[in-house]
C-alpha cells in the first residue's frame, strides 16, 4: 500500500508539473505577439512596453519560466492586469461559490443517477430500463447552456418561483445545481447501470441467490458494495465534467464562482487571472482523481493487501 501511495504521488506530481508548464506556455503557444492580442495592433508603444514588463514578457523564456515557478511555489499566481489585485485573492473570494455549487450538483446528480441506474439494471431490457436510458440519453444531449435558459424560462419567468440569476440565498442555487447535476446524472446513471449489470453476472451473486438470499439482500449486500468500487473512480472522473460544466453554468446563471471569473477574465483579456483559474481547476481535478484512486485501493482488499 505504501509503495502504491508513493508511486501514485510521484506520477501525480509529474502531471501537476506538466499542467503548470502548459498553463505557463498558454500565452506563448499562441502564434504572434501576445501583447498585440491584448492591446490590439494600434496601441501606443509606451503602453505596449508597460504591459510587456508587467507580464514579464521582456525577459527570456527561461527566465520567465523560473520566475513563474518560484512564484507558484510560494503561492503567488501573479496580479490581475485589470483590478491590480493578487490573483490568489480574486480566486479565494470566488472559491466558496464554486465549491458550494459543485457539492450540491453532485448531490442532485447522485439522487437522480443512483435510483435511475439501479432501476435500469434490475429491469434490463424492460420498459423501465428503456425509459430510464432514454431519459439519460436526453440528458446527455442537452447542453448546460440550453438547459439553463430553458429552466429559467420555465421556473423563473413563467412560474416566477426562483431567481433568474445571482447568488442570494438557497433558492438561487436550485436552478444552477439542477442544470449542472442533470448532465452529470445522465452519464452517471449509464455507468451505474453497466457496472451493476457486470457485477450481477458474477458467481457470488449466483451463490447468494442459491443459498436463498432475498432479491433485496442480493442487491444491497452483495451487488451494490461490489459495484461501488468502479463507481467511485467514475465519480472522480465525472468531477471533470462537473468542473468544466461549471464554467458554462456559472456564466448562464451569473453565479459568482471560479468559472464565471475565468470567462470574465477572458473577456477582459486579463491573462494572469485566466491562467490562475485554469491551473486551480485542473489541479483540483488531478488531486481529486489521485485521492479517488487511493481510496479505491484502500477499499479494495485485493489491492490493499496485494502490495504489502
Amino acid at each position, binding site marked *: 500500500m505504501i509503495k502504491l501511495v508513493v508511486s501514485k504521488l510521484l*506520477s501525480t506530481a*509529474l*502531471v*501537476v508539473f*506538466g*499542467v503548470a508548464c*502548459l498553463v505557463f506556455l*498558454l*500565452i506563448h*503557444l*499562441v502564434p504572434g505577439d*501576445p501583447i498585440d*492580442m491584448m492591446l490590439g495592433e494600434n496601441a501606443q508603444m509606451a503602453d505596449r512596453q508597460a504591459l510587456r514588463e508587467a507580464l514579464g514578457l521582456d525577459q527570456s523564456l527561461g527566465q520567465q519560466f523560473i520566475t513563474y515557478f518560484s512564484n507558484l511555489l510560494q503561492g503567488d499566481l501573479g496580479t490581475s492586469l485589470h483590478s491590480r489585485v493578487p490573483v490568489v485573492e480574486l480566486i479565494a473570494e470566488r472559491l466558496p461559490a464554486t465549491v458550494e455549487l459543485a457539492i450540491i450538483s453532485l448531490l442532485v446528480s447522485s439522487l437522480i443517477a443512483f435510483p435511475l441506474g439501479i432501476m435500469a439494471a434490475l429491469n434490463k431490457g424492460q420498459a423501465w430500463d428503456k425509459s430510464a436510458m432514454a431519459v439519460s*440519453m*436526453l440528458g*446527455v*444531449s*442537452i*447542453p*448546460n*447552456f*440550453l438547459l439553463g*435558459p*430553458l429552466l*429559467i*424560462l420555465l421556473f423563473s*419567468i413563467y412560474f416566477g418561483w426562483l431567481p433568474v440569476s445571482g447568488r442570494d440565498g438557497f433558492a438561487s442555487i436550485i436552478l444552477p445545481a439542477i442544470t449542472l447535476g442533470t448532465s452529470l446524472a445522465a452519464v452517471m446513471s449509464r455507468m451505474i447501470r453497466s457496472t451493476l449489470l457486470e457485477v450481477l453476472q458474477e458467481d457470488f451473486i449466483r451463490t447468494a441467490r442459491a443459498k436463498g438470499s432475498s432479491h433485496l439482500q442480493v442487491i444491497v449486500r452483495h451487488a451494490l458494495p461490489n459495484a461501488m468500487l468502479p463507481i467511485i473512480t467514475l465519480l472522480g472522473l465525472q*468531477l*471533470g*465534467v*462537473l*468542473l*468544466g*460544466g461549471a*464554467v*458554462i453554468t456559472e*456564466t*448562464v446563471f451569473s453565479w459568482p464562482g471560479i468559472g464565471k471569473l*475565468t*470567462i470574465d477574465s*477572458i*473577456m477582459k483579456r486579463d*491573462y494572469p487571472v*485566466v491562467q490562475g483559474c*485554469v491551473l486551480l*481547476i*485542473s489541479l483540483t*481535478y*488531478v488531486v481529486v482523481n489521485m485521492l479517488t484512486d487511493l481510496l479505491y485501493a484502500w477499499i479494495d482488499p485485493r489491492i490493499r493487501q496485494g502490495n504489502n
Partner: protein
Amino acid sequence: MAKINFSVWIIILWLLISIASLWLPLNTQQVHLDSILKTPDMSNWLGYDDLGRPVMDRLIAGSFTSCIVAITVILLSVTIGTIIGTVSGYLGGMVDQVIVRIIDIFLAFPGILLAIALAGIMGPGIDNVVIALSVVGWVGFARLARAQTLSVKHREHVIAAEVMGTAKRKIIFRHLIPLITTPLLVEATFGIASVVIAEAGLSFLGLGVQAPDASWGSMIRDGTRYMLVAPHLVLVPGLALMTVVLAVNLAGDRLRDRLDVRNQISTRVV
C-alpha cells in the same frame, strides 16, 4: 440489412442542409426593422430575431457552422490521435513513456476548460475554435488507439511482418491501423456529438463564431436576452442543436452495438 434508422435520417438531413446552405439564397444579415422579435407565423416559419433577421436563414447558416467545425475537428483529431497513439503503443519504451505522460497532462484539464482557455487567449473566430477543439480532441483518440495497438501488436501477422523485415512505418499503417479502426470509428461518432456541443458552447460564451455570422450557440446566447418576449430565439436553435446531438449519440450507440465493439475489445485484451 436493417432499414435506415430515424437518427441516421436526421444526420443525413443535417449534412444536406449544411451543404445546401452554400447555395441557398440566405438572408442571414438582412435587417427587417418592422419584424424585430416577431414570433413565428405562417409566412415566416421561425420568426425573426432581435435585429429583425429571419431565424430560419440563420438556423441554416448555423447548421453549416456546426457541421464544418465538427467534421474538421474530428478529421484532425482522429488522424493525429490515431498516428500518435499507434506509434506510441507499437514502439513502446521511452517514446511511449513520454507520450503517455503528455496524454495524462492533457487529460488533467477537465472537459472543455482547455478549449475555453485556448480559444479565449487566441481570440474569437471559427478557425481558432477548430484549433482549440482539435488540441483537446486528439487525446482521447490517441489513448484509445494506443490501448488497441497494445492488444493487437503481438498478433501473428504483425510478428510475421516484423520477421520479414517490413519497415515499422508500413507495419503501423498496413497491419495495425486497419485492425483498430472499428473502435475508433465508434469513438469518432460520439466525438462528433461532443464537438457540436463544444462549438455551440464556445460560441455561447462569445469565443466562437463572431457576429454577424451565425452559430446555434451564439443564437442561443443572443436569444436569452429576449426570452420573455421571444422565447423562439432560444427554443429554435436549442431544439436543432439537441436533435442533432441526440441523433448522433443514438447513431453512435447503434453503431457500437452493431459492430460489437465492447466484446471485441474485451476478447482482444484477454
